[in-house]
């Protein structure tokens, strides 16, 4: 093991790409991983006000928008892309349900979380503007990882519960 502690002036990090602004998977990649070999039919749904309030009652969470991004997999399962509000920003995730509506898998698609208090500092934020995973101009200066007090994944758990209620109320009879 080698471990060295450094205090780097913030101004020296103008080209760093933090892992916490990572794009993990595209929608197509997530579909292929979660339902290998299957094909997908887009079945977008616009939720009615009545459906939204039923989902909110059943899941004890807030519905963020009325557009449901759902795909039916050729094996009978469902693939849904949605997002939750993390500590500061939206976290898109994909939920795979089997043909019976049970959770088969969850993949987080992007993570732009956890600049902590620095998120409100324009100087800190400016260094990340326009950066994407893969913009690795100078890997020597990359900060690939963040270690801190453990962030809860409760917001994602809540989002999954909301989609399970959405499935029961809206998709199960599709």
């Amino acid at each position, binding site marked *: 093991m080698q*471990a060295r*502690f450094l205090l780097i002036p*913030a101004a020296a990090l103008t080209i760093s790409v933090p892992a916490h602004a990572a794009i*993990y998977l595209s929608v197509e990649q997530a579909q292929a991983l979660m339902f290998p070999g299957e094909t997908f039919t887009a079945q977008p749904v616009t939720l009615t006000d009545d459906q939204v309030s039923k989902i909110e009652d059943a899941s004890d969470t807030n519905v963020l928008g009325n557009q449901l991004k759902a795909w039916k997999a050729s094996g009978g399962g469902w693939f849904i892309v949605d997002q939750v509000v993390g500590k500061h920003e939206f976290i898109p995730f994909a939920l795979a349900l089997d043909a019976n509506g049970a959770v088969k898998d969850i993949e*987080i698609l992007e*993570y732009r979380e956890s600049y902590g208090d620095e998120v409100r500092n324009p100087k800190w934020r400016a260094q990340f503007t326009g950066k994407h*995973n893969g913009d690795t101009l100078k890997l020597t200066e990359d900060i*690939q990882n963040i*270690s801190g007090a453990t*962030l809860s994944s409760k917001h994602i758990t809540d989002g999954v519960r909301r989609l399970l209620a959405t499935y029961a109320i809206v998709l199960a009879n599709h």
Partner: protein
Amino acid sequence: MQSYSRIIDSGIERAKPLLGTTVSMRVHGLPPACAHAAIDAGFAAVRTVHETMSFHEGDSDVSRLNREAYRNPVAVSDPTYAVIARACAISAITKGAFDITVAPLLVARGLLPCPARAPDPDGCATWRDIELLPANHIRFRRRLWIDLGGIAKGYAVDRAMDALQGFAPKQACVNAGGDLRIAGPDAERVRLDADRGNDETVPVIALANGSLASSEGRPAGPHIDPRYRAAEARQFVSVAAPRCIDADALTKVVMARGACSARSLAIFSAHAVVHDAAFGWREIRGHG
């Protein structure tokens, strides 16, 4: 000295909600299908830990122990036995500054749910009342509740890294909500996400072939000094160690004992950095 300059590709990385946090895994130098198979194997390893060592799941090994181990020896899985054995060894080495029997205090603070049908704990019980018996059996000498929340994440990271290594990536990283392990020829920089109120400098650890875990102590938070059964003052602690299970557990020891933990750190080839408002950043190097 290893450099941080040779990671050849940006790697393939995925993340899932597990262990109550977000767990991410990244591998470099593998074809995509192989990289995803490696990451699938890594997540399967984490899921096993999640299911067997959860305080929340009623049928986990931990819940069965808390319900039954005071009355009869309880058989647990190999991983659960290994983690509890390691936890007790760390308790012995640190003279109780790490102790998995503080669960009742976490329940009292509303940080953990009250376990169903478990006998009320004896306030005098400590890690010394956990009896490790042959054939993966564990018995409690007093009524007590254990929580592996302070060590199982690190163990899960170690098992996930084992799974990734089975696919021989050039470089790999597993990060379970800030408890992480890095393997491969390149050092990687890890930013320490301490709430410091000063962003002129960025605290970073350059880490190669090792593990790092961090904790932030705060009033009424999950960090309890087992010796005084009292909450810690606000401070940020990161521990680097070869194995993540040790790094994870040792953050609590450094939180409780500060510079006095140097001897314990040395036993695990670990060292620590600590931040608090009064002293800023300090390094604690393990020495014998």
